[in-house]
Every structure is written in structure tokens, then in C-alpha cells.
């Protein structure tokens, strides 16, 4: 338990120490909301709402607000967790070699991810409410923001443990997150109703955000699809971590003094 608490405390601190990403989020979110809001008209936009199996006619201006939050969170949280995982991989390896239980370490990382993303998605929601006062169900919108943060936090962790090049990781996070969210939104992509888009990581969070913004629905099924992306990313990430931290076969430790 002591190891788990120490690992959680220091994993949490590690994320908070990334002042650049946090500063970027704090400043970037209101600026982006303001800018996108200023250039998007109030025209009605048809959105394929999967939980009801129908098209909703939603205000394009509001749709842009709600999905901008998803976009920014995917990008910055992905970057944040990639950066920390990549930077501390050797250190984390040293800790597990020292005897920090791999499972305890992984659970601590997941807890830190869950708490940090919950807070940052709440901040993004609060800024959204300054610009758009009347989303239908604020709690569901927050859940959708948290969901996209968990998905991209997991994706960032995976890349951080997989890639040796920091630059490659940054580019992949930027390209992948932007393409993923962009394709789901009919303002950016008029063909956003295509079936294959269900298989994209942001699908669940986008559907859930629209449910929260414009309906009484919670889009639970779609959220679970999104959640499974987070689980898959995290599973792969920690499998890579486990493989990278195990003792090499040529070393045999006979006994511990």
C-alpha cells in the first residue's frame, strides 16, 4: 500500500510539474473558444446522433463550442501524457528494478491519469460555460470531456512508452488527434455520418458531448465504445512497459541478502 501511495503521489506531481502543458491548456482553451465562436455562424447543422439513430439539427455555433473542447483536450492531454511517459521511462524502469511492484505502479499511473484528466476536463467545461450558457446536461458534457481526455491520455502514454523519438511522438499526437476529432464533426467534415467513423477513438466522446449538449440522452453505449479505446491504449502501454522493464534473460540473481 505504501508503494502504491508513493507512486500515486509522485505520478500526480509529475503531471502537475508539466507547467508548459498546463499553461497551454489554461490559456489556449479560452482563446480557442473565443476565436472559433467568433467565426462560426448560427446556421443549423445536421448531426448524425447514433444513440437515437437519427439526424439532429443543431446550432452550428454551439456545436463548434462543444467540439472545440474535445479537440483541445485530445491534443493537450495526449501531448502531456506522451511527454511525461517518454521523459520518465528510464526512471520508471529504475524504480521497478528497485522493487516497485509493476501492478502497483501501473494502477498509480492510471489513478493519476484519471484525477488529472478529471480536473482538466472540468476546467475546460467551466470555460465552455462562459461562452455557451445553456448546454442541456452539463454533467454529461463533462463526462464526454473526461472521456476524450482518458482516451488521449492513454494514447499519449502508449506512444511515450513505445517511441524513442520525442519529435515523432508529438507529431503523431497532433496528427492523430486532430484527424480523429475533425472527421467526426459535420462542420469540418460534411461526410461525418459515415459508418466507419464509429471505429475512431473520439467517436464515443463526440456522441456523448452532443447528447449532453442538445438532448436528454447520455449516449452510454457510445461512451462505452470510447472507454474501451482508453482501456486498449492503456493495456498496450503497460504491456510495453512491462516488456521494457523486465530483467534480461542473461542475468540471474541467485539470492537476495
Amino acid at each position, binding site marked *: 500500500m505504501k508503494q502504491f501511495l*508513493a507512486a500515486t503521489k509522485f505520478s500526480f*506531481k509529475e503531471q502537475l510539474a508539466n507547467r508548459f502543458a498546463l499553461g497551454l491548456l489554461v490559456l489556449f482553451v479560452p482563446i480557442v473558444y473565443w476565436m472559433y465562436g467568433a467565426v462560426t455562424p448560427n446556421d443549423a447543422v445536421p448531426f448524425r446522433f447514433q444513440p437515437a439513430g437519427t439526424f439532429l439539427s443543431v446550432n452550428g455555433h454551439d456545436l463548434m463550442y462543444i467540439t472545440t473542447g474535445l479537440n483541445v483536450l485530445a491534443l493537450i492531454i495526449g501531448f502531456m501524457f506522451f511527454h511525461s511517459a517518454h521523459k520518465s521511462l528510464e*526512471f520508471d524502469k529504475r524504480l521497478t528494478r528497485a*522493487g516497485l511492484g509493476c501492478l502497483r505502479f501501473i494502477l498509480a499511473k492510471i489513478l493519476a491519469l484519471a484525477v488529472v484528466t478529471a480536473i482538466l476536463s472540468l476546467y475546460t467545461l467551466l470555460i465552455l460555460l462562459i461562452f455557451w450558457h445553456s448546454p442541456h446536461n452539463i454533467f454529461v458534457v463533462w463526462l464526454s470531456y473526461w472521456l476524450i481526455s482518458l482516451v488521449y491520455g492513454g494514447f499519449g502514454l502508449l506512444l511515450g512508452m513505445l517511441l524513442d523519438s520525442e519529435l515523432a511522438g508529438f507529431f503523431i499526437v497532433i496528427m492523430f488527434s486532430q484527424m480523429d476529432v475533425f472527421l467526426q464533426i459535420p462542420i469540418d467534415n460534411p461526410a461525418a455520418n459515415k459508418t466507419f467513423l464509429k471505429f475512431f477513438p473520439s467517436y464515443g466522446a463526440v456522441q456523448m458531448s452532443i447528447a449532453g449538449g442538445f438532448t436528454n440522452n447520455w449516449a452510454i453505449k457510445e461512451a462505452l465504445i470510447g472507454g474501451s479505446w482508453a482501456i486498449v491504449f492503456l493495456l498496450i502501454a503497460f504491456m510495453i512497459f512491462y516488456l521494457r522493464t523486465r530483467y534480461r534473460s542473461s542475468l*540471474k540473481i541467485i539470492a537476495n*541478502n
Partner: protein
Amino acid sequence: MRLLKAEQVRKSYRRNHVLKGINLAITAGTLTGIVGENGSGKSTLLKILAGELAADHGSAKVAGTIGYCPQEPVINDSLTIGEHLAYFQSAYRLSDHKYADHLLDELNFRKFANERAEHLSGGTKQKLNLTLALIHQPAVLLLDEPYLGFDWETYLRFWGIVNELRQNGKAILVISHLVFDQKKFDRILKLHDGHLKETEV
């Protein structure tokens, strides 16, 4: 008592055969040095002995705990020195980190205990790197260029610590491309062309 034994260790990077059948045994209470030119395979050998890298052939056996000090400091920039010690105390399941505290004094960097690692100088980072390798007072110490970046005063203090550890029965292996004080070692081996050869101390 023999605490480390490596037999027929071979390692190649593509066609570059770095280690061509290394045999090495280190006993308790001794200090062994391995010297060699840049790129001769010293760090590769140490990584294999520490279990960081797999050999292509051969085996390494260690009796007891290992303390591995890598050449580049492996620390976390976002944590303070004190937090590093607490984290590793927890990882090693130690009841305290008194020995690490003793090293903070010996290596004269206690004054930075509350500084985050990103704000430390290269030499102080190296002191922390070394302290993390020794915090649990391991039976076998594998030190890769441990005094790189130390000033003269710290260099002398480092040897004081090493002597203390040797007297306490630890098996110590230091690798370096330069060995100034050969008399400090019980044995010096030269790694050349993939083989270890004894040199006179």
C-alpha cells in the same frame, strides 16, 4: 566469497562484435576496475551484468542485491532530491533512508535536498544518480563512470565512500575510460578487442 560471475558473455551490434566471450568473477570486499577506449564495450558489459541488456550468449550471476549506477543520470526532473529518496525508499521497502542521508552529507549536496532535479547542476545530478544506486546498500555495485562531472573535492569523497563500502564486504566494479589512481583498485582489467585482460595495478 564470489558475488558476481559472468561466463562467456558475447554481444554484437550487427556485425560489430563488441564482447567476444567475457569471463569475470568478482569477490566480496574487492574493488575492480575495467578500463578501455571509447566504444570498447564497457557500458555494454555493465548493462549485461546489471540485467539492463541481454547478452547474445553466456550468462551472468549475481549473489545478492545489485546497485547499478548508469553513466547518464537516470532521475526525474520534476521531483526533488528528497522525493527521489522517499520514492526509492518505498521501492526498496526500506524502513528509512539513513544511508542516503549519510551520502548527502558525504557528497556535500544536502543543501539541495528540496530542489527539483531539473534545477540541479550536472555534477549534483550525478551525485543523486550515485546515491540512488547505493541507497539500499547493495551487495554488488556496478558503477559506470561514476565520478564523471565531479569536482576534485567530490572525487576524493567518492573514493572515501567506495573504500568504506569495500571494507563492509561489497563487491564493487567501476568502469571508466580513464583511471587516474590505479592504486585505489584491487584489480584493473582492460577491455580490448572484446576481451578482458589483467593489467598491473
